[in-house]
C-alpha cells in the first residue's frame, strides 16, 4: 500500500565493473541504486519510539481539567513506588531505593488527597486502558493484515467489532450494568468470530477469501441485530447509551477493566510476539508457507484466536474505535520496515502511544468528552494522508 517507487538495479556490480553474470535492467544510470544499500538504524528508531511513548504517558497524567504540575505527578508516582518497595520489606532493595529516592521524594507529602486520587483513581486506569486497547488493536491489525496478505484489513475483519457491539447493545437493553456490558461485548466478539471461522471451514475453496466473506456475512448479521435493538430500545436512556458506546470512549475505564483487559491482552499478545517470524512466512501465502514447512492451518488458527481475543476485550472496555488497527501497522512499517520481527513490538508500543495521545485530546479539547472513535479518524486520517504524500519513506 505504501511501497516506494520501484527502482532499478544498476548495470554495474558492487566493484564498479560491469558483470556479465549479474542480472541487470536497462535505464539504470539515473535511477537511485538499490545495491549495497544500508538499512536505517532500526534499533535507534525503536528506542526513540519507546522514549516518545514514555513521555506521552507522563504528559497524560498532567493534562486534564484538574490541573496537576508535572513535578507533582512524578513525585506522587515515585513515592508510591517508594512505599511499595518498602512494603515488600526486602532489606537490600529497601536500602537501595531509600538512598536513590530520598533526595527526591520529600519526607512529608507535598500534595493533597485530591491530587493523589486524580492520579491513581482516574488518570492511571484511563492511561493503562488506552495503552492496552491501542496495543491490542494495532497488533491484531498487523497480524490480520499479514495473515490475509492484505494491507487494507483491520482487526474487525472477522466480525469481532460487530459481535461486540451486539453484545453491548443487548446488555444495555436489559439494563445489566457496566460490568455486564464488558462481559457481553467480549462474548459477542468471540461468538461472531467463532461463527465466521466455522462458516469458512464449511465452505470449499480458497480459505483466505472464504474467511473474509464469512466475516462480512457474520458482521452484517450482527450489525443488523444491533440496529434492531436500537429500534426497540427506549429512546430516553437506552438508545443514547448504545449510540455513545458504539462511538468508543475510555471515560469509564476502571482499574477492574484494566485488570481484566490486561490479563487477556497479555495472554493474546505474547503468542503473537513469539510467532512474529512465522508470520513473515505466512504473508507469502498458503502454498509458499507450506512449502517451507509451516503448518499453516495451525498457525492461522493461533493467530485468529489471539487476535480475536485481544480485539474483543479491547472493544469490550472501550467501545468501537476504528482506524487504529488499520493504520498503526502501516506507521510501524514506514518507521521500521516490513519485517514482523520489528512490526509486532512496534505495533504494541506505537498503538498504545497513539491511542493515549488521542485520548488526551478526547478529554481536553472540549468541555464534554469527545468519543474516541470520532477522534481517531480526525487525528489519524490527516497524519496518514500526509505520510502517504511524503512517499512513506522519509520517516
Amino acid at each position, binding site marked *: 500500500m505504501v*511501497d*516506494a517507487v*520501484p*527502482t*532499478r*538495479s544498476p548495470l554495474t*556490480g*558492487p566493484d564498479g565493473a560491469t*558483470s556479465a*553474470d*549479474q*542480472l*541487470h*535492467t536497462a535505464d539504470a544510470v539515473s535511477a537511485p541504486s*538499490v*545495491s*549495497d*544499500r*544500508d*538499512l536505517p538504524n532500526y534499533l535507534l528508531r525503536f528506542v526513540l519510539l519507546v522514549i516518545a511513548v514514555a513521555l506521552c504517558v507522563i504528559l497524560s497524567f498532567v493534562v486534564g481539567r484538574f490541573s496537576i504540575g508535572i513535578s507533582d505527578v512524578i513525585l506522587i508516582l515515585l513515592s508510591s513506588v517508594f512505599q511499595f518497595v518498602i512494603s515488600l520489606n526486602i532489606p537490600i532493595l529497601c536500602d537501595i531505593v531509600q538512598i536513590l529516592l530520598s533526595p527526591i521524594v520529600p519526607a512529608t507529602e507535598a500534595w493533597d488527597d485530591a491530587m493523589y486520587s486524580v492520579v491513581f483513581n482516574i488518570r492511571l486506569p484511563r492511561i493503562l486502558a488506552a495503552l492496552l486497547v491501542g496495543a491490542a488493536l494495532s497488533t491484531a491489525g498487523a497480524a490480520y493484515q*499479514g495473515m490475509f*496478505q*492484505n*494491507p487494507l484489513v483491520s482487526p474487525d475483519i472477522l466480525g469481532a467489532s460487530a459481535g461486540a457491539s451486539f453484545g453491548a447493545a443487548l446488555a444495555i437493553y436489559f439494563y445489566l450494568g457496566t460490568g455486564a456490558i464488558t462481559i457481553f461485548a467480549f462474548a459477542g466478539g468471540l461468538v461472531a468470530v467463532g461463527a465466521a471461522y466455522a462458516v469458512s471451514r464449511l465452505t470449499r475453496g480458497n480459505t483466505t477469501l472464504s474467511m473474509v466473506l464469512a466475516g462480512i456475512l457474520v458482521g452484517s448479521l450482527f450489525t443488523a441485530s444491533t440496529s434492531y435493538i436500537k429500534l426497540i430500545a427506549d429512546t430516553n436512556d437506552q438508545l443514547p447509551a448504545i449510540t455513545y458506546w458504539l462511538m468508543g470512549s475510555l471515560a469509564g475505564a476502571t482499574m477492574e477493566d484494566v485488570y481484566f483487559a490486561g490479563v487477556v491482552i497479555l495472554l493474546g499478545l505474547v503468542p503473537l510476539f*513469539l*510467532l*512474529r*517470524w*512465522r508470520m*513473515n*512466512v505466512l*504473508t*507469502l501465502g498458503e*502454498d*509458499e508457507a*507450506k*512449502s*517451507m*514447512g*509451516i*503448518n*499453516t492451518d495451525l498457525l492461522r488458527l493461533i493467530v485468529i484466536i489471539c487476535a480475536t481475543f485481544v480485539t474483543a476485550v479491547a472493544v469490550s472496555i472501550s467501545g468501537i474505535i476504528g482506524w487504529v488497527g488499520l493504520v498503526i501497522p502501516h506507521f510501524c*512499517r514506514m518507521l521500521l*520496515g*516490513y*519485517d514482523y*520481527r520489528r512490526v509486532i513490538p512496534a505495533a504494541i508500543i506505537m498503538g498504545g502511544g497513539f491511542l493515549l495521545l488521542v485520548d488526551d485530546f478526547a478529554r481536553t479539547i472540549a468541555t464534554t468528552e469527545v468519543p474516541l472513535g470520532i477522534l481517531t479518524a480526525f487525528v489519524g486520517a490527516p497524519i496518514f494522508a500526509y505520510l502517504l504524500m511524503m512517499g512513506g519513506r522519509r520517516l
Partner: protein
Amino acid sequence: MSLEISHLSFAYSRRTRLVLDDVSFSVKKGDLLAVLGPNGVGKSTMFRCILGFLRNYKGSIRLNGKDIRTLDHKEIAKHIAYIPQSTYPVFNYTVLDVILMGTTNQLNLLSVPGQKQIDEAYAAMDNLGITHLRNAGYGEISGGERQLALIARALVQKARILIMDEPTANLDYGNQFRVMCRISGLAQEGYIIILSTHNPDHAFLYANRTLMIYGGKVIADGTPEDVLDAKLIRDVYGMDVHIEECQCGSRHHRLCIPIIGATEKYG
C-alpha cells in the same frame, strides 16, 4: 534421494474431467527435468501434488520410498523446495529477509533466525551473485533478481529437490538466459530440478530430460533430443516448427524455429 510418481491421477471434483491422468515418471540425482505442455494441461497441478498441497489424488508419489501423503509439510520441506513464479510481494521485505524465510524449517516454532541462518543466507546469495541486493526491497528489484532470490531461499531450505513453476516467465531475454544458467549449474551440483517451461529451446539448451504433458497425460518422456521433434510440437501446440541443428563453438545445439506462414491453417 529419489522421487517416484506412479499412476498419478487427479480431478478437482468428481464431476470435472481428470486434470492428471495416469502420470508416471521418476527423477534421480542431477536431473534437470523440463516439463512442457500447453497452458492448463496440469503441470502446476502435478507440482501441487508433489509438494503435498493436494492430497486427494489416485496413484502414489514416493519420496525416498515413502508415500508423500504420510509426511507432514515440515518433513516434505526438508527434501523438496518450491520456487514459485516471482510475483510482486504484498509486503516489501528486504531480499535478505525473503531468503531467511527459507531457514524457517530449521527453527523451532517460537524462534527467529540467528547468526547461523544469516551466514547460510549470505552463502546462498554469494552462490547466486545477489549479495549486493541484500538490503534492497524485494519489490524494488527486477523480475530476474527476484527469481534468483527465490532460488537462494530454496537453497537455504537445504532441500535437494527443487520444483520451479515457470522460472523464466516474465523475464527478459538476457535474464532468462542467466537464470537458466544458474539452474543448470545447480543440477550439476547434484540437485534434482523439475521445472515447467513454455520454451522448447530451454529444454534443448539446459535439460537432460523432458516430459511432455498433454491432456493430463505424459505423451513423451526422454532426453530432449530424443523426444522433441517437429511432429510432437505440432501435435501439442498446433504449429509447424523446424528443428535446426547447429554447431556453435564446441557445442552441438538444437533450436526450435517456427515456420511463419504455415501456422495459419491451424489457427
